[in-house]
């Protein structure tokens, strides 16, 4: 049942040491900035984080990493121009990295939400990222076996939630939001606004409320107009 909370701190309060936390967003689009900040404040450590990247600059996920709170990161693209906090921890052997092709990352997250125990994919076959993985020829293609990525919590961002927990997103900020909310045992979503049941057209709901545990409305800086 949906829990609508008053502030980001209350939303992330259940996250305990040792949790696996999926964090949505691709670049700034869909990044749950205020939830990440609340997680930094809240203090949970020894975290495994699932994100497309490994933090940028000095804030958000980068700050969480710099504080030594992340034990392991599962992502597709850790190395960036401004991923210096991750880079330093990685070279110091203080953070574990599981680098995953972005499509395998998305499909493995989807598999966790969809009850798929494992799947074969051609992506990654013959590359260092397939080392140690089971290989099989299927449909005339060499494929590797990939496992679901599950999580205790997900932190994602949508634009509007209704009081049934249904979510709609905005443009490319949708990205990992729907699949992470479905994959996590406890999904936490920040939205710009919460409306009453019946205010969202059932045809356009992207994430049905069954996947949403906690919603918090946060006044985000105004976004541009399309």
């Amino acid at each position, binding site marked *: 049942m949906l829990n609508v909370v008053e502030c980001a701190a209350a939303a992330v309060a259940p996250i305990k040491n040792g949790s696996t936390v999926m964090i949505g967003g*691709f*670049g*700034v*689009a*869909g990044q749950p900035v205020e939830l990440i900040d609340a997680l930094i404040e809240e203090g949970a450590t020894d975290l495994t984080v699932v994100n497309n990247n490994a933090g940028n600059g000095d804030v958000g996920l980068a700050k969480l990493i710099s504080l030594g709170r992340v034990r392991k990161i599962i992502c*597709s*693209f*850790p*190395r*960036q121009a401004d*991923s210096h906090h*991750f*880079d330093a921890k*990685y*070279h110091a052997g203080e953070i574990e*990295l599981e*680098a*995953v*092709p*972005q*499509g*395998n990352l*998305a*499909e493995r*997250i*989807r598999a966790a939400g969809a009850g798929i125990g494992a799947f074969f*994919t*051609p*992506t*990654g*076959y*013959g*590359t*260092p*990222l397939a080392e140690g993985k089971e290989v099989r020829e299927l449909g005339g293609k*060499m494929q590797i076996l990939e496992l679901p990525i599950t999580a205790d919590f997900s932190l994602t961002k949508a634009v509007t939630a209704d009081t049934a927990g249904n979510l709609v*997103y*905005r*443009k*490319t*900020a*949708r*990205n*990992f*939001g*729907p*699949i992470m909310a479905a994959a996590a045992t406890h999904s936490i979503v920040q939205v710009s606004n919460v409306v009453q049941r019946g205010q969202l057209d059932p045809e356009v709901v*992207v994430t049905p409320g069954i996947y949403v545990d906690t919603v918090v409305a946060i006044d985000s800086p105004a*976004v*541009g*107009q*399309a």
Partner: protein
Amino acid sequence: MTRMTRDRALSPEELAEVVAADIPAGAYVNLGIGQPTLVSNYLTPEDDVTLHTENGMLGMGAQAHGEEVDPDLINAGKIPVKETEGCSYFHHADSFAMMRGGHLDCCVLGAFQVDRNGNLANWHTGKPDAIPAVGGAMDLATGAKQTFVMMTLTAKNGQPKLVEECTMPLTGVGCVSRIYTDQAVFLIEGDGSVVVRETFGCDVEAVQELVPFALERA
């Protein structure tokens, strides 16, 4: 289509124009980050080419500037872009399913190395202390119906980039079908042979000197 004759190696922009001319009308295409992005400048409305960006959009438009910029609308290179009429949004698993399911007619990628069997290395230099960062490259290389590579024929240090066998960690196996370089366009035949389709500002012999295996002529 008439092939232009050229009397010198091509600039990245000129090469992008060559690639654009080879993309069939009505195609669904993903352009990789960096030099491949230039190809979009040479696609015309008549080409009716639809661009895919793996962060969840089909029908991606041109780069956005000034007041057009919307932080919720970016491409895979995290650059603000615009919509086109008929575009659509979807989540990351749906976006990669589109790519991995073989629905894109073509993707254009940069490369560190390509070898005669179409193996591609473009994500990792192989240096032991390098942090592996692959993004969507492996999905694109393996998933699109055709993978085109855009690169210089030789690296800055003069080393060949079209090689007998890739020495850097692979991105995909046997996935490249064409290589567009500043000096020539190559067709990968799948049986280990590579055909020089055309040269720019040099003859086939000059290109052959920069490639460490015997090329075929068109």
